[in-house]
């Protein structure tokens, strides 16, 4: 008994080296909530945004410094994939916080909880991308999700936000049930000996014929659970409502960070744990990917508000990214990572423009973009670049991400899906250019009396400017990014 306790201690100490970023985040967020917040006057709560940004920067440094390794009885692993996706997630959070500060000021909704919840959700995400055990996967998904439910409903005076949060929570609970049930079926199929992904990979292909339905149903349910998190069709229905109801910076955050985390989990669980039984999930997942591209892009065509449009567009982008999971290679995983990075840049830029224009938190209608080029030429130009980049038009950075992903997918033999992806990309240009049309070829709408002021600050200008420049010239850094920055390797 003493030996076990000592072994446990040993494992905790050695494992803790791997999770310094998470430990630091937890500690920092806790101190922020109590006691630090006691000393911040109500009128000065906005100081939490820069503090959070500093914490995130330090977390980024810790991620960089963490040595690769395996810990906690093979339940968690730090490798290129972990570090690459963790960096993405922290960057997304950093940008979301930057987007939040001025808007929350305008809404008079600055609280420490908002920032602390972002940090706590981050702990879940950072753990998720390093999870090498179904149990780690599950609890980190829950940690991430619960924080985000609350953030969606953060503006508790607004019915729409509360409704969205509640819907998301109910459906999220439903999907968690499916996920957990699927995991238990997989656990049962291998005889109840392990939930470790590497072990599963070894055992699953050799389960007896009688248990094969068990394996298949289990894998399928895990797939459904993860598809819910990336908002893939037909498990996407929560996302337009949640995206619309959430405070816009949280929408931007949800479209990137949790999506990156879930994609990392997808790559890890299906690329390692279920790789041996890929014949079980390849077909369903390719249906999901194709359906996401088609439905996401088609439904976006008729949207009236910018946030819903971007929500459907993010469903379609999830479909594209699933190509990388289906491709099942290290290169494909890199392509997904790269795609997420480009998506983060242009998506954040687009949301920043929406936030600047939307005043005090009312949903921004696409009609409101009418004649923006005349009123705010720079903003309109930047928005046009983000939209064209989202549509994948060369030489913008979005094209580069798509090109790399699609090219590898073709090499992996996913020709049919790539054809669907290309056709639906063309459809996506239709609605993205619809907004450009509003901005450049329509007369400006008469601004109503007492129109809300723009949410403009140095930070917002900086975000729009930097993301716009990156969108324009990011392609130049492409080969460097691909070759040297992150060699995402694992297994």
């Amino acid at each position, binding site marked *: 008994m003493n030996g076990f306790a000592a072994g446990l201690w040993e494992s905790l100490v050695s494992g803790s080296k791997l999770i310094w970023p998470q430990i630091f985040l937890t500690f920092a967020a806790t101190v922020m909530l109590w006691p630090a917040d006691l000393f911040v006057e109500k009128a000065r709560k906005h100081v939490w945004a820069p503090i959070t940004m500093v914490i995130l920067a330090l977390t980024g440094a810790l991620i960089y410094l963490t040595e690769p390794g395996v810990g906690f009885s093979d339940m968690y692993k730090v490798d290129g994939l972990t570090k690459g996706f963790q960096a993405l997630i922290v960057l997304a959070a950093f940008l979301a916080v930057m987007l939040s500060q001025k808007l929350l000021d305008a809404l008079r909704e600055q609280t420490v909880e908002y920032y602390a919840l972002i940090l706590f959700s981050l702990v879940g995400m950072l753990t998720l991308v390093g999870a090498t055990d179904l149990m780690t996967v599950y609890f980190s998904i829950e940690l991430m999700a619960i924080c985000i439910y609350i953030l969606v409903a953060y503006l508790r005076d607004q019915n729409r936000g509360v409704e969205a949060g509640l819907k998301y929570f109910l*459906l999220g609970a*439903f999907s968690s049930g499916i996920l957990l049930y699927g995991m238990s079926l997989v656990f049962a199929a291998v005889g109840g000996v392990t939930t470790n992904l590497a072990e599963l990979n070894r055992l699953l292909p050799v389960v007896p014929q009688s248990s094969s339905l068990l394996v298949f149903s289990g894998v399928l349910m895990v797939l459904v659970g993860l598809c819910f998190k990336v908002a893939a069709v037909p498990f996407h*229905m929560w996302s337009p409502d949640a995206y619309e109801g959430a405070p816009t910076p949280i929408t931007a955050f949800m479209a990137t960070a949790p999506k990156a985390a879930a994609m990392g989990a997808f790559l890890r669980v299906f690329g390692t744990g279920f790789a041996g039984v890929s014949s079980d999930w390849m077909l369903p997942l390719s249906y999901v990917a194709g359906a996401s591209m088609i439905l996401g892009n*088609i439904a976006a065509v008729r949207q009236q508000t910018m946030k819903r449009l971007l929500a459907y567009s993010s469903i379609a982008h999830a479909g594209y990214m699933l190509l990388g999971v289906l491709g099942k290679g290290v290169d494909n995983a890199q392509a997904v990572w790269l795609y997420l990075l480009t998506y983060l840049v242009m998506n954040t830029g687009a949301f920043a423009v929406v936030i600047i224009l939307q005043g005090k938190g009312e949903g921004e209608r696409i009609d409101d973009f009418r004649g923006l080029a005349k009123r705010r030429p720079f903003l309109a130009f930047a928005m046009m670049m983000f939209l064209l980049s989202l549509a994948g038009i060369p030489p913008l950075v979005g094209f580069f991400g798509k090109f790399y992903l699609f090219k590898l997918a073709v090499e992996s033999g996913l020709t049919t899906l790539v054809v669907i992806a290309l056709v639906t990309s063309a459809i996506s240009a239709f609605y993205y250019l619809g907004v450009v049309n509003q901005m450049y070829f329509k007369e400006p709408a008469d601004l109503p009396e007492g129109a809300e002021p723009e949410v403009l600050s140095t930070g917002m200008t900086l975000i729009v400017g930097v993301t716009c420049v990156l969108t324009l010239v990011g392609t130049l850094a492409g080969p460097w990014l691909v070759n040297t920055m992150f060699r995402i390797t694992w297994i």
Partner: protein
Amino acid sequence: MTPLWLIPVLPLLGSAFNGFFGKRAGKGVVSAVAVGTVALSFILSLVAFFAMQGAAGHRLEATYYEWMATGGLSVPFGLVVDPLSGTMMLVITGIGALIHLYSVGYMHEDEGYARFFCYLNLFVFFMLMLVMGSSLPLLFVGWEGVGLCSYLLIGFYFETDYAPAAGLKAFLFNRVGDLGVAIGMMALFGMFGTLTVSGILTQAGHLSPEAGWGLLTFATLMLFVGATGKSAQIPLYLWLPDAMAGPTPVSALIHAATMVTSGIYLICRLAPLFSLTPHTLTVIAWVGGATALFAATIGLVQRDIKKVLAYSTVSQLGYMFLGLGSAGYAAGFFHVFTHAWFKALLFLGAGSVIHAMHHEQDLFRMGGLKSKLPITFVTMLLATIAIMGFPPFSGFFSKDEILYLAYLKNPALWAIGVLGACCTSFYMWRLMALAFWGEPRDHHAFEHAHESPWTMTAPLAVLAVGAVFAGFWGIPKAFGGSFAIEGFLAPALTFGQSHGAHAGHHEGPAWLLAGISTTLGIASGAFGWWMYKDGLAKGEALGAKLPGLHVVLLNKYFVDEAVEAYLLRPVRWFGNLMWKLVDVILIDGIGVNLPGALTRVAGDFTALFQTGRVRNYALTMGLGALLLLYVFLK
């Protein structure tokens, strides 16, 4: 050694400055920059010109870098000064500078002052590239560039209806010709594997003349098609009369003195090549002769002073081609040189008249201006005597040399040329009589008429000196001269090869021919002056006696109408068909809008499922999972 690149680059800088800052800089600065850069270019051209005469083989060449290199094609970016391009450079920058100076006065009250000089300087740049380029592609850049500037300047008064249309017409006609140049260049590349002028000519030196209709004849004919476009020869001459819609200095510089002669320049540049293709030369001679007479007859009855001069230019360009086609490259080019002086002078004089008459261009509303515009009158008179070919004015020597060579080639060509010269003499004296003699027919305008400012009259005077004396550079051998210009141009025209320009060694009745043409010219000139010196009555009476001929000439042989009916209308009809059927219905409708509409319908359909109710969402998820299960188990 002079940095050759500075010569074209200076006007380019001037153009850029006036284009970007001209509006803010004010007219004084704009004028100084525009005139100054061209004048500096002229000085540098002079330096280069004399340096060239001292250089080995009378040739300066500077290669700056490899411009294009793909496959077997390698084109250096290089500039050349030899007797041919050197003379052109002096004409372009010298007469160009004078016309820039003239424009300072002429355009003074125009809104687009800076824009005008931006275009005009740009034109000088491209024209210099055309003549200085050491390779055909570089020449073609200039060729296209002057076409662009011509288009911009013809359409300069873009608020009017006719100017942009005239610009477009010029551009389209030139495009047809440009295609010829491009095809010719490709053919030459196919034959010689190089596109530098020296490379082609060196290899051409090893070939013997082509007896039949071979590839070389095809290539040279294609180049000649390009020349007919740029130099307004039949059948691509229609644009030049319309080009008079541009400001008068533009007509003088671009549409009389320089750009329109680039077709002749192109043929002279590749003279050894054309010498190898006798069939092409024959075609050139006949096209040139026909144009010379044809355009001159139209000029007989025109009322617009600039239109008369425009047809005169077409006609004179025809003479130049007649000379080239008779293997008299030096003679043709000599006429380019003399024509540049007297035709620029005539246009600027006409501009001075128009300026004085408050933008009145109708000869029938002028009259009696002799006393009001003395300087304009005298200088224009000198130019008229020069163009009619009265010895020893400049036009006499150059035109007579051409007619003499034409006679040696085919006496019929000579007859056509003499007939054209008679018409020339007639319409020029008619123009002078209508404008300067007789009673004023528009008293209001007459009373306000006044001599132009010095910026306009000074260029007239300088050009007049040239119009009188330029001919002495090439007194034909038949008249005891040495035809100095031929010896001067020889290094460029023969490119050090034995065959080439060797015309003029045959014997012919030179004195007799010159006597006939000069006598007839003087007679028809006197007749034209007598007809119109007292007003319109006698001319109208003559027109009434020959109604058919008068109507045909007045309507320019109805060529524009024929082109409209048999070429443009079918093309427009076909274009309309393609637009309405193929583009609107097939591509826009079925190809684009139909999928768009279907997508929208599909989008609306998906919205039906987004009910906003959690139970429906959960149901969708459950059904989706079951569907996936079914898909797999099926």
